[in-house]
Structures are given as C-alpha cells and as structure tokens.
C-alpha cells in the first residue's frame, strides 16, 4: 500500500486530506510542523502533500531542502496562498502541482490520482497512443477514429493528449485550465466545457465516446470501459 505524507498544521484540513488519501487506497502519514515534515520526507512516499504557512516556515521554500535531502515523492502544495502569482511561484520552486485552499475534495482526489499515476507511468515517448478505436499520433499531431481522420485544432490536440495521459481518471476543469491553457485563475464561467464539448462531439461523430462527464467533478477519458 502506498503511503502519502501530509504536512499540514490545521487538523481539520489534515483529516480531510487523510480521508481522500484513504479513499484512494493509500495510507496517510500526517506531520504538523515543517521540521517533522522535512525529516519524514526522505522516506518512501510517492506523493507529499505540503502546506505553505507552517510552524517553522514556508513549505515551498523547503522543497529544495527536501529534494537535497533525498525526497523523491511528487509534491502537491496545498495552500491558502492561492493567487496565480503564488501558484506560479510554487511551481517554479519545484512543486509538481499546486492546489489553493479552500479546495473541493473531488479536485484534491483528481490531483492526487494524477500524481500517483505520474509516479508509476512510463514516459509517453511512443509515437502512437491507441485507446481502442481511437488513435493519437504524437509526431504528426493527428487523431484517428476507426482509421478515419478527425480534424482537431492545435488546442484540441493538446486537450486530447492531456486526457490520454490521464486516461481512466477524473480530470477537473481546473486541471485542464492549468495544464492545457497554462492559466492559473478561475475564470468563473465554464469556458473549458465548451472546448471539451466540441472535441467530444467531433469524436462522437466519428464514433468514439472516449470523453465522458464525471458528474460534479469533471471529465473522464475512459475508452477502456468501452474497448
């Protein structure tokens, strides 16, 4: 069973994160101070959930020290400092993902799952990604369904490759905005839905139901279920 390290001084938040971790079938290990978190980080944790304003200092500033000490887990910063500038700073200082508080449990779950998977996934360097009838050719940047070419815009291609990289898992709108559009703020309207909707219609017209809605959470690229 994977263990996930949670460095968080607010017990309620720590409990909520721990609950999500258990929901993913992993074991949570909670540390309440930065020093304790730093000491524990060298153990074998595939994912570390790190708060920023901790007793003992800023978690983001400690990332470099964790890495230097030999921590190999992917780091998800979970912080009340949630402005775009804070997030960009966190990512630049070595965080693998950055989720602002208050967060929705589904969002945290999706991100933890993505990180857990990223830790075990082989690098996607093969040219062809095939999900049943759906084929994505990375070099040519083309999408085929049942051998028929589906015309997608460059953005739609980025969208489908991000989906493919997280195949089988819930992907939230916020994740799509951050990873596909590189935007770190909440635009308020569901602009992302329109784009996913278009891509989805194109695929469905060609005969693939690869993109599905996960109610209240986001989308799932789940061709395995239908394959």
């Amino acid at each position: 069973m994977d263990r996930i390290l949670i460095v968080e001084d607010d017990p309620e938040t720590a409990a909520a994160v721990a609950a999500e971790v258990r929901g993913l079938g992993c074991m949570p290990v909670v540390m309440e101070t930065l020093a304790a978190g730093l000491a524990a980080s060298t153990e074998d944790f595939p994912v570390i959930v790190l708060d920023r304003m901790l007793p003992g200092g800023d978690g983001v500033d400690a990332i470099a020290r964790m890495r230097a000490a030999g921590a190999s887990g992917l780091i998800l910063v979970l912080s009340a400092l949630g402005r775009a500038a804070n997030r960009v700073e966190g990512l630049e200082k070595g965080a693998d993902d950055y989720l602002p508080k208050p967060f929705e449990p589904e969002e945290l779950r999706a991100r933890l799952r993505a990180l857990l998977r990223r830790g075990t996934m082989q690098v996607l360097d093969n040219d062809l990604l095939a999900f049943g009838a759906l084929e994505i050719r990375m070099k040519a940047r083309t999408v085929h369904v049942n051998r028929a070419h589906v015309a997608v815009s460059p953005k739609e291609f980025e969208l489908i490759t991000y989906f493919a990289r997280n195949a089988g898992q819930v992907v939230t709108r916020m994740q799509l905005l951050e990873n596909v559009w590189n935007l770190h703020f909440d635009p308020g309207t569901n602009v992302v839905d329109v784009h996913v909707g278009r891509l989805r219609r194109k695929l469905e017209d060609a005969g693939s139901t690869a993109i599905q809605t996960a109610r209240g959470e986001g989308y799932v690229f789940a061709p395995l279920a239908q394959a």
Partner: protein
Amino acid sequence: MTQHRPLAARATLRLAALMALAIAALSLAAMGLQYRLVQARMMQASQVLLTADLNGFAALYEQRRIIALRQAIDYRTTAGTGGEMLLLQDRNGVVLAGTEAAWPAEIIAQGDGFSPDQAIEFTTGGSRWLGVARTLPGGFPLLIAHSLAPLDATLASLRRGMMALGAVLALAGAAVGWLAARGVMARIGRINTLADRVAAGDLAARLPGPRSADEFGLLETHVHAMLDRIENLNRATHRLSDTIAHELRTPLNRIMQKLARIEGQPDLAAELKTEMRSAIRVFDSLLDISRAEADQGSGGGLVPVDLSAVVAEVWDLYEPLGEDKALHCTLTVVPDLQVLGDRNLIAQLLSNLLDNAIKYCAAGDSLQLDLYATGDGHVLRIADTGPGLPDSLKLSAFDRFVRADRDKDRGIKGHGLGLALVSAIAARHGAKLQLPMVEKGFVLEILWPKLVLDP
C-alpha cells in the same frame, strides 16, 4: 510619471537676483548721498571763491571806480587762466576790458553792486559757469564768472566710478546667485530624482551617502522617514491580505470539506457548493485587486510577456463561447508585441473583458478584439455592440461593487468586481484605460507601455 523639464532653479535665481539687486541698490544709494554731498560742498567752495573775488573787485571799485576795475581785469585777462570770465563794458557796449569779445547774449545783468547774491549759473562754450552780471552805476555792464568745469570733471569721474562699481556689483551678484542656485539645485535635484523613483514604484529607493548637517540634510532625513513609513504601510498591506487569505481560507476550507460529507441531499449540497465557489471567487477577486493595486508601479514580479500571444490564447479560449451564443467574433492581432507584465494577470484581465462582453451581448451582436501598436505603446481594444455602459455608470464603472441596476433586474449575475479588477491589473502594468464615446455598445481601449529592451 512627471515630465522631466530641465531643472530650472527659478526660485533660487529669483532670490539671488533680488539679493544682488538689493545690495547694489543700497550701495548705489549710499554712493549717491556721498555724491550729493561732494557736489554741494564743491558748489559752496565755488561760491566762496566767487564771493572773495567780488569782494576784491568791490574794494578796487571803492578806490578808483571803473579805472581800477578796468586795470584789474586787464591784468587778470593777460594772466589768463581760462578758469574765469571777466568783462567790463561802457554804457554803449564797448568792451573796456575782459576775457570776452562781446557780452554773452543769454546773460542779463541784474543789480548794481558787488554782492554775491543772485549769482547765476550759465552754460557757454560747452562748460558751466557761476558768476554775477551787474550794471555798475553810470551804465557799465560788468560780468564776473568762474568756470565750474573742474567741479563738473570731478563729479563726472565720481559718476563713472559709481557706474563701474554698480556694474561690478551686479555681475558679482549674478555670479553668486548662479553659484548658489547651482548648489541648491544639485541638492534639490537629488531629492527630486528620489521622489521620481519612488513615484515610479521603487519604494525601497533611498539617497546614498551620509546626510549633511544643513537644512537639505534635514529635508533628506525627513523624506527618508516618510518613505520608511510608506514602505512599512505597503508591506503591512501585503501582510494583511496574506493573513486574511490564510485566516479566512482555513474556515472556508473546513466548510467545504464538511459540505462533502452531507449525504442524502445532493441538490442542496450542489447548490451550497456553487454558492461557496461564488463567495470564494469574490474573495479572490478582492485579494487580486488589492494585491494588484499594492504592487502598482513596482516593476517587481513583471517579466517580458508576448502580449500578442496571450491575447490570442485567451481569445481562443473564449471564442467558442461567443460563437455558441451566435456573436460575430473578430480578432485582429499584430504579432510579437511585447510588454513587461505578468502573463496570468493579463490573461485574467482579458478573461474578465471577454466574459463580460459575451455575458451582456445577445445573439447577432458583434464582438471585436484588436491589438495594434501606436507611437505611444500597444493598444488593446475591445468593442461590442451590446447594451454598453449606462451613462450613469461611465465614471464609476471601474470601482468595486458597482453594477448597473438593469443587470440586477435582468438577472445577470455578477459582483461588480470584473472591471475593478481590469482597472487594477491595467494600473499594475502602467497601462491606461480609455472609454471612447460610442453610439452603441461597449468599447474599451487599454494603452500598454511598450517594453523597452536594454541595448
């Protein structure tokens, strides 16, 4: 930022000029008094001389009348110093003796004695004379006058001396004034440069070197104390918003986590979640606005950003939304326009503007976004043919929490923070907002300062 005129020390120069003028005027007045005194004394001396002369002639006349006078005048004429004018005529105007060949036309004889009273000053042959003209008993006109030329020469040289001294004083005053002004300007210039740097956003700017122990040093000390205070306040504002963020987010976060545990009422839970999201967004917008305002003018955190690329990206994100609403969407972007900025903030500004336009426009309206370069900078222009801003809102549209009543009536959701955030982000980038007059719809122009790359 203030326009930089060449530093003109008008006030200092005026003061120096005034002082120089005052000193020159006082000196000249003192010399003028002296001049008048010298003039009066010399005139008195001339009169005493004339009186003595007249007394001499009077004594001669007492002894032997005209004959004695004639001899004396003849004798004196022969001796001829040039400094005196003597003339004795008979009753027919024939010259009996004298330095002159004829009676000067402008002189009229008065009285008949040798009294020095009624002495006259007259000018003849280019110089001034002091003398008396009499008609002695029996009709003998007599003229005795002394030249005032030596006196005039003395006075003239005195005047020349005064003029020269006045000129020297004026020049010295001007030179001292210029030097003083230059010195003062150098000191004030330092403080002006500091103020400009601070106004441009560099709150940590200070004057290097030690303070001098004069009034300028005191001014610098005071300016520094003021800047320290401003800097501390600014830092406190940053800290406050971070603290608020932390202290409020933690309870909000707990609410959110507990919301997830509500079971059996999925619709209510979903509604609550939506409300929470909207409350968090208001809170985030306020934080974004105050942070952008606090950072305004400080170049910190800004990097070169390809404005054209960001505009195109955010447009790509929103265009389908507009198309789905059957708006006519057009984008015109001049490529490779660079600004010094924060990509996420710029994207947020664009997102707010496009979101507003799409929200307020109805099917068939057009939405146009242009980015082009002008001499002054890059202009980002968004124009739609929607309802536009009500006239009553033109001035306050960029304030926080300002919304049009008709939107509330129409049920369009919002908190009146979108344009306030646009304005704060623009100000953070030193960009200027303009609302041109249009007949229909909403048009906003944002003038971004060009990125000047160091050579």
